[in-house]
């Protein structure tokens, strides 16, 4: 962050296993906080001025807003829900900045732990290390949409993209 100078070349991409473990643990903290229904703990994994874009496009700014809005959700719509998720990829853009993609899904209050989580989503997160502490600076969530009637009617979506992008592989 501040200690880094303007640079014309990328930082060496140091993939530090301790840092990687810390970041994965940070994501797990986010999940655990959801499952405890604790908005403050959920927001604590973010930096003070974090940007949080929810699946519906809502953009929350700041840890306090993230805490407050999630506590409201945990007390109402999300009451009793359990979040399941995992980090799918993690890359260091610099020694102090990591780009993280994760996938999550929720179990509703009436579902058993062995049920298949629904409402699957994918997140892009950016983690930053400041004064030795890793926190998330940004979060953007998108629902993974099944190929439903609507999407079929409108053309092709993920299948098209996968076909297009995978052709040369």
């Amino acid at each position, binding site marked *: *962050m*501040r200690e*880094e*100078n*303007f*640079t*014309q*070349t*990328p*930082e060496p991409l140091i993939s530090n296993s301790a840092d990687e473990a810390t970041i994965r643990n940070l994501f797990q903290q986010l999940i655990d906080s959801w499952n405890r229904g604790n908005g403050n703990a959920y927001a604590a994994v973010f930096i003070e*001025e974090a*940007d949080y*874009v929810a*699946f*519906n*496009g*809502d*953009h929350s*700014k700041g840890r306090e807003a993230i805490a407050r809005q999630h506590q409201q959700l945990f007390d109402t719509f999300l009451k009793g829900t359990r979040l399941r998720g995992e980090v*799918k*990829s993690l890359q260091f*853009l*610099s020694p*102090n*900045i990591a*780009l993280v*993609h994760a*996938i999550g899904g929720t179990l509703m209050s009436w579902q058993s732990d062995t049920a298949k989580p629904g*409402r*699957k*989503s*994918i997140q*892009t997160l*950016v983690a*930053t290390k400041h004064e030795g502490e890793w926190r998330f*600076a*940004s979060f*953007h*969530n*998108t*629902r*993974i*949409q*099944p190929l*439903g009637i*609507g*999407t079929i*009617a*409108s*053309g*092709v*979506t*993920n299948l*098209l*993209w*996968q076909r*297009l*992008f995978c*052709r*040369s592989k």
Partner: protein
Amino acid sequence: MALKIFQCINLFPIALGTGVSLSLLLQSPAKADSLSEVLPLVRGNHHRDGIITNSRLWSTTQQEEAAIEQVVQKMQDGHNSRNGKLFASAFAREHDYIVIDGTFLPKITRQDNARSHQELYDSDRTSSLGGNLGEVGMQLNVAKIRFLTPAIAVVHIQSHSYLESDPDKKAKNIITTVMQKREGKWEIVAFHNAPVQKREEDDFGFVIDIEGFEDENADTNVNKNEYFLPK
């Protein structure tokens, strides 16, 4: 400026014509006669985030912001001229791309991105806005730039797409990108696109409508006049 659009967005069903409440970044006025009025360019707030505070860095920061705006412009111009290569020139040689429906394309190449978009532009696929994809315009506006380091930034972009023959048919997305300056050039290393949905809509509906929306969740502590600068 005549604008058109790249789109994954228009591959999706979009219901138009019903009222909606949505909040996206710092919102635009509730109603405007043209897209350019609907789409404010938001700037300035990132200076207060405490990341870049040294006044000696100020002009450099503005230069970097301008360079980042140019990257976004490339995507817009690439789409609007149906030029997949130009569109993809905004991206790093290898980058992560999350399509609007949540499809994750990790580490795709700039060439694959260019080719895929070119195929979309050249196809006669029907857009969900009506018409085909070649008739959809796109306007991208940088809503917020946050420098995590002088060479790494999180950039939020508002995306508005519309049917050129019928601009009332339009849709709204929010894009988060992570950009990095590599060898003197800002590039997108991660792109995450998502529809702005109607609140309390069902989980799978891309029901988007910006007609007469009320910005119920706007940050009321913000003096909007400071942020809405004409492009």
